[in-house]
Structure formats: C-alpha cells, structure tokens
C-alpha cells in the first residue's frame, strides 16, 4: 500500500493505482473524458491534469500511478486554468447543439463546461464540420460532437475484441468510422454508445424519443441468455425507451451485448396477447378472465374425476421467474396432483446439472465469473461463447487479454478475424473438430494426462482404482484413431493437457455444443474426470461451468420444475426431502412418477395424458417436425397455454391466457453461475395480462386448493424457507464447495456404471461426399423466438441466413446472398447464404430463431440417461438454386 495526500486528504491505495482512481475512492472527482476504469489509459484528452508537489508541470492523473508521499492538488489556480484551456480547445469545435443532442442532460462535457469554463470563447474561427451519412441501423454517430477521446475505439478493441471502429484521419479531423464508407457491421453491443462521454455516438433505436430527465428507471435482469446481466430499463409514460447499464452494476459490470442493449422492444410488440382466449367452435375467441379461468377449472375438475391426476402434465419455460416456476410446480403437485412436470431446462441444462450432482454433489457452478477472469488456463468445449453467452465470453476475453490466461478451445468453428468476435482467435490451442467429435478431443486430453504422468498424486493416492480404471479405458484408445477423428496431432493434445494440468487455476466452460448434442451428459462427466485427474477439481477457483442458454435454466432446475427433481433440487424419490417439503406445504406430495418433455409428448400421443398446462414453452415451435409435438398436443382434451404471443403451441390450445413479460413483473432469475437476482417491474402489464404465478394462483382457488400469495416477495420467502440458504440476493454468488462425500462415492463406485460407454471412442460416422452437417445454433443477435419480435434486433438480423465456408460456396458455385436448397430425406428448405470464414468446410450453420423450415430437416434422438432431446444437427445436401 502506498500513502499519499490528495487535496489534503491522506489516502492509502494499492501500488499501481492511478491517481485519478485513488482520488475517486477518496470522493474527489477529477474531470476526465478519455479515462475509463475498464480501459487502458490513453491520456489524450488532457482534462484530468493535477498538480503534484515537486513535479514542475501539471500531470495527467489518469496515467500517473500513485507514489509514496505524493502530494496531489486537484483544485489549484493552475489546475483550474488548465481545465479552462482544455475545454476551450474542445469547445472550439464542439457545436452548441445540446438542445437537439440525446446526451443533453447527462453529458460529461456539458457538466464540465458548466463547472469550469467561462461562457464565451475566444475562438472566432469556423468550426469543424463533417458531412453526415447514416452510420448504421442501430448506432448513429454525429462526429461534429466528438471530443476524440477514443474511448469507443478502445472499448471495441480492448473489452469486446471486435475492432470494428476506426479513428480515421488525424488531428482535429479525426472521425470515428467503420471501414471507408461502409455502414457499421459489428456485434452491436452498444458499448460505444454507453461509453461515449458526449453525444457523438447514440442509439438510433431511441433517438430523440426522450430527454434524460423524463425517464423512469427500473433495475432488472436481461432475459436473453443465462448470463443474468443487470440492465436498467428506462421508460417514459409506460413506454420502453432504452436500456443501459452502469459501470460496476451487476454481474456484467456495465457491459451488454446486442440482445441486451437493443432487444428490449419485444415486450411491447403489438402482437402481444392482451386478453384471454377460449376456443369456441374450433376458434380462439376473446373472453374475460372469469370465463377463461372458470372454464379451465371446471374442465380440470371434470378430467381429474374421469381420468385421475396422472392424466395431467405440465411444461414451463425456464424464461419464467423463480416465483412463477415455484408456483407452477406447487400448483401441478398440489392442486392437480401430478409429478409430470418438465421445463425447457430439459433441452440441455439438465445434462450439466446432472453431471455436477453426480460427481460433486452440487447443482450450481463451483466457480464464479471472477474465477473465470482469474483463471490461468481455460478450457472451452463446444461453445461459441461470444455468441451464446456474450458476457461470460467477455470474462474469458478479459482473462486472456488482461490477465494472460491460456485459452484452450474445442469447437466446430475455426479462428477467423472479423468484426464479430470469435473466441477461437484468442486461443493458444484451438481444436477445430466436427461437432460430434468434441468427445474425442476430451478423451485425447485425458489420455495425454494419464500417459504423460500429469495425474494428480493426491488423487492417485485417494482413488487408485478410479485412476486405474480410467487409465485402462484411455489406454484402450489408440492415438492414430483419435488423431484421425479429431484431425489434430497427439503432440498438440499433449501440449494442451500439460498446460491445463499445470495451471494453478483451471476452469472448464462447456456450452450448447456439448449440452445439447448426443452424448452431452457423458461428455460433461468426462470433463469432470479431466478436472479430477489433473487435480483441478475441488481447488478454489477451479471447476466445471456448464453455460445455461436460457435466463433461468438454473432456476428451473432449482425450483423443481424438471421431471426428476423437487424444489431444492432434491430427488423426486428422496423420502427425507419429500417429508420436509410435505411438512412445509402441509399437504401430501403426489406419488406418481415424473415425466420428461419427450415422454410427456409420447403419453399425450397415446392418450394417457389428457390435459396439459404449458407456460411460456413452445414445443411445437422448438422441437423438429420429427418429434411430432403437434400431433401429440392435438390429441389433448385440454391444453392451457400461458403465453405472451400466439405461438405455434398456443394456436393449438383450448384456452390461452395472456401472461406478463419480464418487464412487467417482479420476481427473480437465477443466472448460469447460480446467483439469484431480482427482476423488477418497469412498465404496467400490457392489456389484461397477468404474471404467470397470479394466473396459477387464481386457478388454484377456483379448483379448491388455494395457493395464494400477496406478491412475488411472499413466494420468495416461501422458497427460502423450503431451500436452506437459498437466494441470498447478494452482489455476487457464493459458489458451493463440492460435496466431498459425493466426490468420494463417485471415485469409489459412481464412475463405473457407464465408464465403458463414456470412454468408448465411437467411430464417427464417415461423412459422405457432398454432404454437409447442418447445425441449427443460436445467433448473437437473437435468443429463442422472443427476440424475433424486437424491432432493434430484427434490424440486424431478420431472416434465417445459412452460413457457409467460402471454399464450400465456391465449390457449389454460389456467393453471398445467393439462395440454396438444403435437403435431406426428411425435408428441404431454401435460404440465402452468407459466407463466413469462421465456419469450417463441410459445415452449414443456420440460426434456430428462424428455423420454421429448418426444423423439417432435423431428426430427434434422446439421451438414454437424462432424456434430453437432441435435435440440433442433421446431414444435408446443399444445391445451388
């Protein structure tokens, strides 16, 4: 620690702290434009000059580290004079157009001008003018206002690793451009808009709709992925105006992605359901809440009398709040009396949770975002993290770029520099493999660990049988077979294994490419084996982190809205847990079995299930045609949907009840790292829509099993009483430690049951010539189907475009924008193509958000252990149209 004095205040700061930061911590604000705590200092604006004793000239406080005994003065005549001169220079060119500038009212330059400058300028020269063209659909620049602090350019490079902004020209004529006269084409994270100290870069989406003083703010959580970013929704007269976030706020620390920053309009889309709909004479017609709920309750009671409670099933989207999820399962278990509940966590998250529970006895990550940043070695398997979980991706980028962590990636995509970031570019070792061969790389790594003597000695001592068994299993694999499957050399695998094993802190991130693909559960368990073998498991700051796709996937598991768990999560058949929950609920729990999504649909098809409650989930629109969800749901005698929009599933329903979106309700979401964060209402409910839990609560009353709450907080209180230590709404998560008893059991016997399966290098299906592997993946600019109602995101991407490697495209004789026919035995689709160098040859990537057609092509397979439906890839033929 260094002792210094700033403006007479004695301060201690850690060595290396900049004077400007030390002053901020002491409550002394030094004006600045170019400095930002997230960025490396640039000291180009000269606004933060301070006087330092025994230094002859004024110093920029943003670039001067503190020194022992330093005496800094920030408010002397010389400093004030310097502020005046700097501002006079800036204002020599800055137009006085504050009245028409969106930043007016919250502009650094405005504030500092008021504080430091005289009202007149000595400059009579003509101000600088840049001709203006539209910059992009979502981000607009007004370069006349630019103070050339280059924060946007540095943010784009240092934090986002996108490098899409260029300071073109020199001197006063420097302007922020993209590439020559092209419109901006980038990730549209909105970071440049947020970080601009003046109004030079603004959002086009809310342009001129507001003045800052008119806005009402609500701090809430973004719903577009599992990262759980805190956003501030700003509203004016019950209209969504803009979204931003503050530096230091939430897990995202003030960073957002395109979805968070520009995707907010989906909640107020004109297609939102505003009234309950009831099917009369085969058509859905508007009804009152009383009619709709009365009809549902009546039919439920009748069906329960006729067929019993086991004829009911429930399905809920893990986009709902914890409160909704909790009330839903309680409603299904008590008011209906069935355990046939599942949620969209079934699509993949459950694989990660089941593996974690099996090996280490936790259902949450044992690591946090901070641990990712602090890691020495990061292994990313099957995740295009910058697109699916962009903010977790930022943590990885920070670890690599600022903390020089070593990044190892295993993914289908290949490194290619472009103005959309690609995590493979930062990797020390990237293993570009076909999406069904991630497992081979992991097996190769484990083999290298075993063969090169990198196995943790403590583990070898603790569980010799386990190490021996795995050693035998990987010895059975031959290097040439692995090499041919992965297309890499044993040397590279050995090197990567060595880096990971020797790292002081190793974190494994596993994404949708694994969790939503065949063998996902086994591969996740193998990755835990890798952590165990290298001794990374159980060490603080090390562990496995399965990335959740939906904002509350984690909450859906914890609230017990999956087939195998009660709230907690506790196993459905765990007698002690059942007893405890029954005691708190003062009601017996139903004895029947849980049923997963695919099983439920099968039972509906065979007529065993007669009635279903579907809350926010859309199996018809999410599963491929091969899953025949539509046929199954059409068999039902009662299908009740609680929805925001009339989705494919809701269109089949007998009753559709309008629900509130996240912007209209209170509650909480649990993010991918297991932090429960508050969701707050920003606008009044649209039309007659109500929060999901309120609807279920009202239904339960009508059915004679009242489950009533005053507000969402009461539900959270009940959840807390049910789950010990739940939801301490803190600033950061308190990750659980692996349960040593469970780890020991796994090492003793748990590993053995499917060892042979997990360590078998399945001969990958040889690709037939001319065939492509079609991957239906998440795009950076969308999340599920909800975001496809957002005007902002549709500006960036509004159709399904098939991504292809340029070499493949050349072979097919097509180029950017041409339409192609994609077909296989199940069906066909036509789509325009886009050439992307990051896509390897033989692969075609299609966004799942526009997959109405593409879903015809996909088959479905189900995981034998976790019953996860895998339906994200297919073998197809592509032809030029």
């Amino acid at each position: 620690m260094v002792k210094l004095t700033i403006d007479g205040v004695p301060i201690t700061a850690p060595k290396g702290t900049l004077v400007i930061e030390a002053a901020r911590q002491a409550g002394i604000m030094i004006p600045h434009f170019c400095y930002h705590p997230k960025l490396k200092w640039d000291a180009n604006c000269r606004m933060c000059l301070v006087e330092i004793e025994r230094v002859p000239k004024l110093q920029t406080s943003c670039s001067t580290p503190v020194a022992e005994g330093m005496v800094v003065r920030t408010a002397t005549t010389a400093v004030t004079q310097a502020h005046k001169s700097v501002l006079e220079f800036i204002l020599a060119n800055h137009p006085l157009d504050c009245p028409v500038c969106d930043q007016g009212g919250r502009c650094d330059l405005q504030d500092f001008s008021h504080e430091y400058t005289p009202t007149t300028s000595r400059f009579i020269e003509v101000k600088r003018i840049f001709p203006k063209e539209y910059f992009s659909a979502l981000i607009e620049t007004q370069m006349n206002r630019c103070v050339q602090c280059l924060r946007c350019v540095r943010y784009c490079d240092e934090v986002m690793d996108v490098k899409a902004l260029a300071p073109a020209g020199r001197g006063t004529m420097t302007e922020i451009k993209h590439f020559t006269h092209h419109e901006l084409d980038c990730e549209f994270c909105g970071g440049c808009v947020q970080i601009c100290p003046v109004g030079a870069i603004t959002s086009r989406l809310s342009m001129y709709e507001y003045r800052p003083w008119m806005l009402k703010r609500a701090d809430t959580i973004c719903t577009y992925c599992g990262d759980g970013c805190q956003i501030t929704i700003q509203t004016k007269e019950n209209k969504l105006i803009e979204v931003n976030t503050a530096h230091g706020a939430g897990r995202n620390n003030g960073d957002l992605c395109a979805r968070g920053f520009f995707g907010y309009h989906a909640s107020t889309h004109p297609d939102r359901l505003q009234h309950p709909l009831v099917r009369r004479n085969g058509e859905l017609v508007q009804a009152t809440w009383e009619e709709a709920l009365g009809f549902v309750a009546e039919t439920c009671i009748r069906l329960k009398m006729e067929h019993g409670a086991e004829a009911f099933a429930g399905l809920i989207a893990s986009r709902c709040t914890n409160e909704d999820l909790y009330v839903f399962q309680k409603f299904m278990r008590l008011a209906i009396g069935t355990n046939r509940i599942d949620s969209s966590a079934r699509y993949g998250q459950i694989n990660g949770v089941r593996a974690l529970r099996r090996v280490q006895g936790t259902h949450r990550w044992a690591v946090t975002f901070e641990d990712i940043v602090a890691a020495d070695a990061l292994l990313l398997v099957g995740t295009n993290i910058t697109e699916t979980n962009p903010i977790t991706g930022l943590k990885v980028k920070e670890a690599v770029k600022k903390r020089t962590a070593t990044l190892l990636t295993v993914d289908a995509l290949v490194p290619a520099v472009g103005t959309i970031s690609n995590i493979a570019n930062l990797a020390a070792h990237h293993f570009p493999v076909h999406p069904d061969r991630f497992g081979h790389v992991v097996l190769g790594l484990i083999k290298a660990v075993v063969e090169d003597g990198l196995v943790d000695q403590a583990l070898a001592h603790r569980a010799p049988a386990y190490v021996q068994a795995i050693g035998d299993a990987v010895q059975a694999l031959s290097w040439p077979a692995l090499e041919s499957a992965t297309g890499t050399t044993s040397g590279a695998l050995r090197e990567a294994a060595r880096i990971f094993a020797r790292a002081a802190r190793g974190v494994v991130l596993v994404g949708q490419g694994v969790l939503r693909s065949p063998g996902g559960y086994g591969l996740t368990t193998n990755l835990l084996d890798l952590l165990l073998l290298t001794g990374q498991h159980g060490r603080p700051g090390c562990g496995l982190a399965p990335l959740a796709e939906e904002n509350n996937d984690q909450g859906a598991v914890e609230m017990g809205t999956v087939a195998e768990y009660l709230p907690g999560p506790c196993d459905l058949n765990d007698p002690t847990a059942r007893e405890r929950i029954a005691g708190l609920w003062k009601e017996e729990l139903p004895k029947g079995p849980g049923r997963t999504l695919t099983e439920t649909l099968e039972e509906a098809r065979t007529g065993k299930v007669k009635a279903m409650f579907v809350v926010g989930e859309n199996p018809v629109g999410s599963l491929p045609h091969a899953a025949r969800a539509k046929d199954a749901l059409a068999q039902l005698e009662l299908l009740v949907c609680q929805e925001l929009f009339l989705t494919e599933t809701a269109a089949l329903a007998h009753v559709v009840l309008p629900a509130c979106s996240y912007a209209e309700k209170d509650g909480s979401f649990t993010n991918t790292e297991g932090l429960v964060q508050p969701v707050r209402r920003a606008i009044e409910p649209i039309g007659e829509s109500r929060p999901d839990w309120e609807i279920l609560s009202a239904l339960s009353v009508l059915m004679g099993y009242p489950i009533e709450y005053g507000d969402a907080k009461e539900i959270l209180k009940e959840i807390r009483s049910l789950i010990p230590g739940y939801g301490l709404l803190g600033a950061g998560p308190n990750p659980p430690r692996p349960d040593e008893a469970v780890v020991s059991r796994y090492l003793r016997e748990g590993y053995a049951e499917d060892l042979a399966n997990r360590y078998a290098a399945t001969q990958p299906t040889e690709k037939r010539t001319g065939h492509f592997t079609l991957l239906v993946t998440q795009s950076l600019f969308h999340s599920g189907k909800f975001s496809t109602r957002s005007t902002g995101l549709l500006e960036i991407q509004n159709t399904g475009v098939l991504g292809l490697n340029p070499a493949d495209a050349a072979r097919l004789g097509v180029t950017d924008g041409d339409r192609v026919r994609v077909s296989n035995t199940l069906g066909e689709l036509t789509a325009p193509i886009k050439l992307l160098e990051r896509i390897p040859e033989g692969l075609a990537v299609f966004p799942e958000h526009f997959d109405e057609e593409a879903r015809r092509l996909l088959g479905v397979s189900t995981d034998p252990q976790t019953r996860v439906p895998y339906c994200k890839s297919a073998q197809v033929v592509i032809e030029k149209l």
Partner: protein
Amino acid sequence: MLQEKYKTEIDEILSRYPVRRSAMLPLLTMAQREEGYVSEAAMKEIASILRVTPPQVYETVTFYTMLNLKPIGTFHIQVCKSLMCALVGSDSLLVWLQARLGIKPGETTPDRLFTLSTVECLASCGTGPMMQVNDDYYERLTEEKVDRILADLKRDGTSPLKSGPFILPEPEGAHG
C-alpha cells in the same frame, strides 16, 4: 491478389517483424505501388494477411498523407501546410495553386494530370514555402515559380526548378 503476385515478397516482409501487424506499412506501400492508391480490396486483403480487421487497416491509411485512398493524377502536388511554411505564406500559395488548377485540396484535375493535397511538415523548413511533387522537392516558392513548375510539368513531365539531387544515395567517394 497481392498475395498471389507478391507471395515471396510478403513472406519476406512478414519475417522482418516479431509482431505480425507491424508489417502493415510496408504492405500498404506495396499495395499503393501496385495500383497507385490503396484500394478497399487491398485493405481487406492486408487485414486478412495481418489478422486484423479492415477498419484497423483503414485507420492507418487515413493517418498517413503518403497513402492515397483514391486514384491520383500523374503529378501529386503536396503542399506543406505546417507552421514554418504557413508563416512564409503557404496559404496564399495554396490559394494560387487552387486557382491555377481549378481544384481544391484532395481533388484531381479532370485531365488526371494533377492531384493537389496538403500535408504536414516535409522537413524543409528553412526554404519554405515548399511543396513536393511526386518525389521531388520545390522550395522557396513564389507564384511565378509555381506557374513555371506547372508549365514545365505539363510539357516535360519534370522541371529544372526542383531541388536536389540530394546526397542520398551518397555520392561516390564521400568518405574518401
């Protein structure tokens, strides 16, 4: 297409630098030598060679007045507008040139003979106002001198009024 044509030269340039993107200026100079200016396609290609994004190449090009983003005329007249020349009248010289050529800085005459641009200090402060035409310096300029230079250039493609030749490469025997 640079890569196809100058593969060995590019490899040689890249081998000179420990950090790949340091090769940007030599490659840009090569691109300009090839086409007379740096085209968008060239910038994209250089970006992919250096594994940076096209905007990063573009920002470098815009910084240097020696790199042109547009095709230029046969004679590229670069007038120094820095302080020393400004004090001895580079601005009136520029006005004179503009009037004579009928173009503004940054433009090319319709006959594609002359391109006029203003540049920063050309390190000939003692002999201002001065300008550089292609690779030749013209110093202590006056309006009459400029007229003669323009006429000479138009007629002969060069002018005896240019300074130099300078001593680079060193004349033989300079070191005895």
